[in-house]
């Protein structure tokens, strides 16, 4: 660990200030985020770590614009996402965000290439062109021989690589990965993280990875620790090659 990152860094691609998030009303109200300040820079992988139930998933949901914060502001590349009307927020998300889910969430009836092409299809690209682009990316990710396989015919690692391709195919500016290695064995998790580090890092792209897998910590440029709805510690680190 080295230089602590500042939540107010001007160059931050993701900038959260004083994020609070409550669920429920009255006595049943639970405050999951209690004034979170968080930043992630473009060209880096930022890890968000912490125990189960500390609010990591809620925070990335707020960052992604999938949940509205109860208080505070989220800026993505200088744009306050919460000020956008819902329809524009969806379009913003489609253009600028890519997701890797813990359970992959691939469409079971589509082939690997078709799954990876979904963000392009959602953006209105013609299917042959979209699938061709997705195939090219899958080849880079080492799935050239499984392009037409259904998810049920792929291993967990292969499915996560398809999910990674889906997150990157439309060249988003922010990639959010939720526990990308949690459902994988250690070796496969390492390999997925290597691919993520090798393919997702781009000078204009930030990558936020939620994980509690400390074995993959070496892939992070910066690490923020969360506990009980707060960022308890932020640090930058130099990557080993």
């Amino acid at each position, binding site marked *: 660990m080295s230089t602590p990152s500042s939540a107010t860094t001007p160059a931050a691609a993701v900038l959260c200030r004083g994020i609070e998030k409550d669920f429920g009303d009255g006595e049943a109200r639970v405050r999951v985020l209690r004034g979170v300040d968080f930043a992630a820079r473009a060209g880096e992988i930022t890890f968000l770590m912490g125990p189960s139930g500390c609010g990591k*998933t*809620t925070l*990335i*949901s707020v960052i*992604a614009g*999938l*949940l509205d914060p109860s208080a505070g502001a989220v800026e993505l590349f200088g744009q306050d996402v919460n000020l956008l009307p819902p*329809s524009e927020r*969806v*379009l913003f*998300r*489609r*253009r600028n*965000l890519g*997701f890797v*889910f*813990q*359970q992959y*969430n691939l*469409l*079971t*009836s*589509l082939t690997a290439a*078709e799954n990876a092409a*979904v*963000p392009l*299809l*959602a*953006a209105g690209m013609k*299917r042959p062109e979209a699938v061709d682009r997705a195939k090219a990316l899958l080849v880079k990710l080492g799935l050239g021989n499984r392009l037409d396989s259904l998810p049920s015919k792929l291993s967990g690692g292969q499915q996560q690589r398809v999910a990674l391709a*889906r997150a990157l195919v439309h060249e988003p500016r922010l990639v959010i990965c*939720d*526990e990308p290695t949690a459902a994988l064995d250690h070796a496969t998790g390492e390999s997925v993280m290597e691919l993520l580090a090798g393919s997702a890092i781009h000078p204009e792209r930030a990558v936020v990875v939620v994980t509690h897998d400390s074995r993959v910590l070496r892939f992070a440029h910066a690490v923020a620790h969360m506990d009980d709805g707060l960022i308890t510690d932020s640090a930058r680190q130099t990557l080993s090659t």
Partner: protein
Amino acid sequence: MNYVALRMLMGDRAKYLGLIFAIAFSTFLLENQSSIFVGIMNRTGSQIADVADADVWVMDPGTEYFEETKALKDTDLYRVRGVPGIDYAVPLFKTNAVFRTAAGNFSSAVTLGLDDSTLVGVPRKMLLGSWERLREPGAIVIDRAGYDRLYTGEPLRLDRLLEVNDRQVHIVGISDAAAPFASFPIIHTRYSEARLFVGPQRSQLSFVLVRPAAGVTPDEMVRRIEAQTGLRARTSGQFRWDCVWYYMGHTGIPINFGITIAIALIVGLVVAGQTFYLFTVENLKQFGALKAIGVTNRRLIGMILLQALTVGFIGYALGTSIAAVFFEITASEIATRGIVLLWQNVVGVGVLMFSVVIFASLLSIRRVLVLEPAAVFRG
């Protein structure tokens, strides 16, 4: 995304086929039962429709439908003829008589005695022989179904003898008369002959058939006859509907068919609706992922509607095809002749099934719309 929607739909083969089967079965049952019902109801007035050369039927005010008549007085014919605007008015005697073959086969038959001089009401479509020969003594025209009933398995042949009320009659023609409500033979003969087929009765005039003069509409003719004679007059169309409503109100037919049609509708609505709803619920995570990726609610609604309309259309087309094949087969059967798949029923069932799939998809759409995309992060 239409492609994605269709792949999602067809990927779950069991539900996809189940949906198509439920809609096809429901469509077939609805079209089948509603067409048979209409066909049967149509038969209640088929002998009225067969009379092409009269537009108005005059009867005793107590006569409600074709099958059961209260006889008019013979003088009523002349009273009707005295109404201004009539081109011609002729008697029709309708009775049931029992006909027996030489081999001993017998059957009660709907017997229609036509005006001796004009033969108004004679069946125009003859399969064999000629209706003009009805002018011969003891001549009858029998319908194809009646002939088959009395001479089962034998070829059509003229001049065969039948016995009725101790009299001998001979067949001069075999007609293609429309099937009656009860599957009795239809026998046409002259009025004077028909009176001899049954025992002596004081009055035997069942109906007076009227053709209005040029320029007088059947409705106007009806008004004039009723005003001047006090008898009941109906246009052919009105009288056919009278028969339909009589059977609707006095038999269990509409209830029985109604139950079957309701079951078919429930099967379509519940099974198809529930299966489609389950299909959507089981795919909620996938829809959630699409939402998170940035697929708009509008696009998701479009995807679900496309899925619903696709299974709806395939199921409907399959069900209608099966119904068409069914009626194509039964149309050539004597017993079920005239009962056809009506285009109105096909269209009506189409609208109904379209409503069913739209209703089912609305339930599913609601689930997807209220789905929080952040749920995809919850594993």
